[in-house]
């Protein structure tokens, strides 16, 4: 040991099993992200530049020169903007009612507000047609003819679809404001309206901004509502569909996809910044605000909230109701005959969707768990870019991701072709479509995990695998459950990413509903939707029950 006296060589640790395992934990999900997200996105970009004799901008000049594209772009932006304003306004009313007012029946509002998330987006459109369409309940009752296809119908459908997000995001911002802040203002003599202007609004500012960008993004990227109720009102999402499915023009579809990507990427980038500002700008509410009853304010807020909720219930409820009506609107007697699906395949796509959703949820939860576990142990310099990559898929519209998949996996150039036309590929696209939300949810769980727990386990002799199973997984169990069910429920209802990947032999529920509606079998579409909603509702209830069970157990253990 004479080397100690001279200059000491850098003491590097030999590769050890845990280090290897750490890199496997990070490596496998990273490989997935590269193969199933980054690579397809590169392909779609290259295809948008592909012309007959190599690469060039000819596709772009053709698209940018067509009036159809500009009309769709204008429609998309107008629709996105209007929907955003409307859903954020209504969302603020409900969130404010839930978190800053006192009235009975909040549980009802909370329950109703999530309904649109439990159904494929085209269900709002279906419901509106049953309500306000030519043969709709309202139109017939009033004896007037409403033109529901087009801008107004799509606006209402999109608003209903975006509303739950707005309520949740704004609500989360309002919760952050501590009760003591209000008490301080009260003592200083601020009137309720002043408190609203000076405390509530500024607190919700980033929440509102954030909600606006989320609503804008989901509106301009949504395909289901636009396909069912958009009529002649073309938007970018339907434009991609018609380029690819209608005209088999993949390169042009890729161009439109890239154009649709621009606003969503910008919007997502701003939203992430707003989130960071909100997180750093405020402390979490340590003393929860308990609103006291103010008759005027609360009766108005309760009335508005219930009005909005009854709108949601009407639109979703009418779909369920219509699915049981013998012959809408002529024979309103109830019968289950529409549940006998006559379209080729029948319910097979529903079962297949369940299988796909379970695959996406299981594989996805495992993948983000491994990634989160590994990222805690790799150097910051390596972890940061991976985290950025893992948060990127949310910026990509489902249509674009789906198109990227068909361009990538329907080519015999790589062995990945073997995946094409399989349920596995649909499960994969669903997972990566919702990768960001799943990943971020789990990361919040990981952030709450004190490093001392893992270090204590390590010094007691537990390896990475043991620590993961004995210590980490139990700690973040609620997050794992949430991510699992989130991925399951989204996979059950998503349409935009999978619409290009279904084949005559392999379809999913949302696509079947669209085909039934296309074929004029609107009542069967309603029946099929009802089945999907029932399954998703069941999943949601299972999730709530599981989470309640976990939290009851944790409370019994004296924890939070």
């Amino acid at each position, binding site marked *: 040991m004479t080397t100690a006296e001279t200059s*000491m060589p850098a003491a590097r640790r030999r590769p050890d099993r845990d280090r290897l395992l750490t890199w496997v934990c990070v490596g496998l999900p990273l490989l997935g992200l590269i193969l199933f997200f980054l690579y397809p996105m590169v392909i779609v970009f290259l295809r948008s530049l592909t012309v007959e004799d190599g690469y060039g901008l000819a596709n772009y000049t053709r698209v940018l020169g067509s009036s159809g594209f500009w009309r769709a772009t204008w429609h998309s932006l107008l629709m996105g903007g209007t929907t955003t304003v409307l859903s954020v306004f209504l969302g603020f009313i409900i969130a404010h009612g839930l978190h800053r007012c006192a009235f009975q029946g909040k549980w009802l509002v909370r329950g109703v507000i999530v309904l649109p998330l439990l159904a494929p987006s085209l269900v709002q459109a279906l419901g509106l047609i049953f309500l306000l369409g030519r043969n709709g309940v309202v139109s017939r009752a009033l004896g007037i003819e409403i033109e529901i296809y087009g801008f107004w119908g799509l606006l209402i459908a999109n608003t209903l679809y975006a509303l739950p997000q707005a309520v949740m995001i704004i609500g989360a911002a309002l919760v952050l404001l501590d009760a003591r802040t209000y008490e301080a203002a009260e003592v200083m003599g601020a009137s309720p309206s002043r408190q609203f202007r000076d405390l509530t609004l500024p607190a919700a500012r980033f929440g509102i901004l954030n909600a606006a960008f989320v609503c804008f993004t989901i509106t301009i990227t949504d395909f289901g509502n636009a396909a069912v109720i958009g009529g002649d009102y073309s938007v970018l999402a339907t434009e991609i569909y018609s380029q690819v499915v209608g005209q088999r023009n993949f390169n042009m579809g890729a161009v439109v996809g890239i154009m649709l990507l621009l606003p969503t990427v910008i919007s997502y980038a701003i939203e992430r910044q707003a989130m960071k500002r909100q997180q750093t700008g405020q402390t979490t509410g340590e003393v929860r605000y308990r609103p006291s009853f103010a008759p005027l304010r609360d009766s108005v807020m309760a009335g508005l909230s219930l009005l909005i909720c009854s709108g949601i219930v009407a639109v979703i409820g009418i779909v369920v109701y219509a699915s049981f009506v013998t012959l809408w609107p002529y024979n309103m007697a109830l019968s289950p005959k529409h549940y006998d699906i006559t379209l080729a395949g029948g319910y097979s796509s529903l079962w297949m969707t369940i299988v796909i959703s379970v695959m996406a949820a299981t594989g996805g939860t495992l993948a983000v768990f491994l990634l989160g576990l590994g990222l805690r142990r790799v150097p910051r310099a390596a972890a940061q870019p991976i985290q950025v990559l893992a948060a990127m898929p949310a910026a990509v519209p489902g249509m674009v991701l789906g198109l990227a998949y068909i361009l990538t996996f329907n080519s015999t150039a790589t062995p990945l072709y073997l995946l094409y036309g399989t349920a596995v590929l649909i499960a994969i696209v669903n997972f990566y479509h919702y990768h960001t939300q799943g990943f971020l949810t789990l990361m919040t769980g990981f952030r709450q995990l*004190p490093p001392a*727990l893992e270090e204590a386990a*390590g*010094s*007691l*002799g537990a390896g990475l695998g043991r620590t993961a199973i004995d210590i980490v997984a*139990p700690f973040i169990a609620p997050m794992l459950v949430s991510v699992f069910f989130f991925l399951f429920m989204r996979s059950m209802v998503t349409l935009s990413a999978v619409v290009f990947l279904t084949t005559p032999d392999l379809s999913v529920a949302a696509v079947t509903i669209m085909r039934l509606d296309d074929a004029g079998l609107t009542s069967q579409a309603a029946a099929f939707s009802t089945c999907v909603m029932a399954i998703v509702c069941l999943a949601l209830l299972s999730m709530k029950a599981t989470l309640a069970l976990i939290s009851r157990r944790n409370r019994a*253990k*004296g924890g939070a």
Partner: protein
Amino acid sequence: MYLTVREATKNYGSFTALNRVSIEIDEGEFVCLLGPSGCGKTTLLRLIAGLSDLDEGEILLEGAALSDLPARKRGFGIVFQSYSLFPNMTVAENIGYGLKIRSTPRPEISRRVTDLLNLVKLPQLADSFPGQLSGGQQQRIALARAIAVDPRVLLLDEPLSALDAKVRAELRGEIRHVQRSLGIPTLMVTHDQEEALALADKIICMNHGVVVQAGTPEDLYNRPRTRFVAEFMGISNLLPADAVGRAFPDLAATRPQGSADDHIACIRPEQIGVTPDPDGNASVRGISFLGNLRRLEVESPAGPLVVETHGAKPCREGDRVTLQVAPDACTWVADDSTRAPAEAQA
């Protein structure tokens, strides 16, 4: 030596957390790493535990290099400041976890867990969950969990810092008792000099990533080598050579060779005698009654001094007094002119 750290260096980017630090721990010894926050003491403990890697240097346990061993194979026990009990396991499961990993037969685990619960005086809590325990109880269990596996070294990372004063004093005695009775070589990180003085066989005082002085508690308190150590180890009167000459001419002769600026005198408050004397050259400015002693602020020719006296009240505020210091009660320390943080003065 049982555990030896030689020339350990650790950098975080351009910041040097540890700069060629060498320490030694003997068999059965209780060693405290003492220093202000950011001095590198926790970094050193984590390196020894294997929770982070050395940039340079080596760590030897009974002569064998540890660098290649990950934390889980070192067989050390560690207790963190707080929140390190596994919330999903009962107290018994927490304590038995290390044994379970070592595939110890179940009856033996439960016997050992019972013994340890008795040792930390919490036998009734076997089936409780960590969330149901007080902070002090949690730390006792964490201690039991760490020693369950008969660790080769026990590492304590500020185990008492998150507790309130009374519990802290109680648990301090407990840790000492357990460590003594089991004879486990122990390294504890703390920023509380009182804790270090009370517990340690040896204190290693650190600042800015280097060891400033190592020795017995008496050594560090009575014979600090630098101004930093003198200030960090309790209250002291630090006087430049010329001030000593004015107030205590007898002491000036004890000053070591060298320039007058190199050394300053360190006189502990309890080493200064106070006698009421109308002709004295000092006066009492203020008196604080602290129960077992009185702390006097005295204005002297050397400037303001802190004096502590036991027993009867010797004087009142405003009284003139003379001060005496025995020549051997004054330690000349190197003026490393690094100011200790304010918290260390109190």
